[in-house]
């Protein structure tokens, strides 16, 4: 028996595999046993009801997808009355993802969802859709600091800051989140992208642009997870393009203590449970007794620090 448990700050997860926000809901219980996941991460909610973006909200590109959903939300009250009780029937930590248009609104909803039954709050400061210019708090260290400080004073629950691959200041943003009191970093959200139908010459998404997810995002998110793990003391949760057990192992070696699986669930709804079995087998065959032996074991000792921290290719 290998030890698959992992610690995200004060929270111990039975295993390191959890869904990425937006790719998971109560509906998945029709296909798989939700007891088997390391945590449950809900789709981002906002305080008010939101309709979301115009359709088409999804299109595929070679081996990956773009989405522009726009955070449709039934509001926080509906969430507290319906969604939290659903998940509380499972003995699995519930992570609630929240977002808002301003730091004050963000703090308010953070306080509202800090209720019994919620194990941690994932703060989606990186969604590329929600603000008019596509900019999000996690684009810059200053806005990250401002929102995280307000969130920190609004809740005693662990706060997981979900970072954005759209920033050129990954490490600065990660440090800003840590300094402002984040308990973990989720690295990362989708990458702002575009696709155009060459026959109609129309953008393939109703919102013109959207977030890239799937296997083609993985090297980017992995690079960020590695940079963050090197830079901060708080746990890093790897997220981006995971679809195989090798992808998970790669994130763990890079320094992630847990992973989120997103788009791959759309292709194979059972993938998280499949990957969990494969991860256990991998650790057994490699004679690795504990998951923690793998975390951060990347052999980068020969590289200069300047390489680790570079923001562009040399």
């Amino acid at each position, binding site marked *: 028996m290998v030890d698959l448990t992992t610690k995200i700050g004060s929270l111990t997860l039975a295993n390191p595999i959890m869904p990425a926000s937006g790719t998971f809901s109560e509906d998945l*219980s029709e296909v798989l046993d939700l007891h088997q996941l390391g945590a449950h991460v809900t789709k981002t909610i906002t305080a008010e009801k939101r309709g979301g973006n115009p359709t088409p909200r999804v299109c595929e590109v070679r081996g990956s997808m773009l989405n522009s959903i726009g955070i*449709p939300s039934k509001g926080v009250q509906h969430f507290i009355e319906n969604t939290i009780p*659903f998940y509380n029937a499972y003995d699995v930590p519930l992570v609630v993802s929240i977002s808002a248009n301003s730091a004050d609104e963000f703090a308010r909803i953070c306080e509202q969802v800090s209720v019994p039954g919620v194990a941690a709050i994932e703060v989606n400061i990186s969604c590329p859709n929600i603000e008019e210019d596509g900019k999000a708090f996690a684009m810059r260290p200053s806005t990250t600091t401002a929102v995280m400080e307000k969130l920190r004073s609004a809740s005693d629950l662990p706060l997981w800051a979900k970072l954005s691959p759209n920033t050129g200041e990954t490490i600065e943003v990660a440090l800003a989140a840590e300094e402002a009191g984040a308990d973990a970093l989720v690295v990362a959200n989708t990458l702002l992208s575009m696709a155009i139908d060459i026959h109609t010459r129309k953008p393939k998404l109703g919102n013109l642009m959207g977030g890239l997810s799937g296997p083609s995002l993985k090297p980017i998110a992995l690079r960020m997870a590695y940079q963050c793990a090197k830079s901060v003391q708080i746990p890093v949760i790897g997220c981006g393009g995971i679809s195989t057990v090798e992808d998970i192992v790669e994130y763990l070696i890079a320094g992630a203590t847990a992973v989120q699986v997103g788009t791959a*669930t759309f*292709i*194979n709804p059972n993938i998280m449970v499949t990957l969990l079995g494969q991860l256990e087998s991998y650790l057994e065959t490699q004679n690795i007794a504990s998951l923690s032996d793998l975390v951060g074991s990347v052999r980068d000792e020969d590289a200069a620090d300047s390489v680790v921290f570079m923001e562009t290719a040399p």
Partner: protein
Amino acid sequence: MSLIQRHSAGEGSPANGTTHEVETTVKSNTPVNGEYRLLTLDAPQSVLDCKPGQFFHILCPVTMAEQPYLRRPMSIYGYSAEKGELQFLYKVTGEGTRALATLTKGDKLNVLGPLGVGFTIQDDWQNLLLLARGVGLATLAPLAQEAQRLNRKLVAICSARNEDVLMSIDHFKALGAEVITVTDAQGTSDLENLREIIENQIADHGVDVMYTCGSNRMLKLLQEIGAKHDIPGEIALEQQMACGLGMCQCCVRSFNRNGTITQERVCREGPVFGIEEAMAW
């Protein structure tokens, strides 16, 4: 039409077994005409408790030429628990369906389903009418099977560009439906002629419910006729999907519920909706 709640909050159950991701085996995959193919799969019993109007989310194969990524939603054309069989009628149009067209007997195909809320046939609906055009026939075909099982009378109005692409006429007839065909080539498929045909059906035999699929023109026509004669109707709708299970919120459409515009997921609250609440697009 009220939303069907498929699970209540707080049950905390293991996978509740209404939807399955399964590996099927291709029995045949043959051209029906120049544009359409019929795919017949050997499928496990677990996925064969289907209702007309439901769909499957199909993981199309990746070939040298085609690399579809997301699953493709496809209405069920036929299902038989006795034969262990699942059928899809599809038009080869894009990367996914081109890849699907390469499958031959014995090949494996991963499908997820059955998904969504299908058509209803209320106990007091004796005279059913369906209006189908093109690939919409595929979605409406299982209604004929169900009407026969429930011993209801079904009139199927089938519309197509020309006789060559009129499909499933024999299929509908074999299931005891009365078939009326109209085509663009014969100049019989225009809305006014369709309206006359349906009005005559209402006058001569009575119509308790009308079903259609996919087309804006037909939606408007049936909404008008339904409102005039107070006849309920249902329509199966399409939208680009990612997950097919209700998680991603990609496949929403707008509906008019008593004057309020709401957005519903085609994969979860649909794909079949009340015709009076569906909105033209």
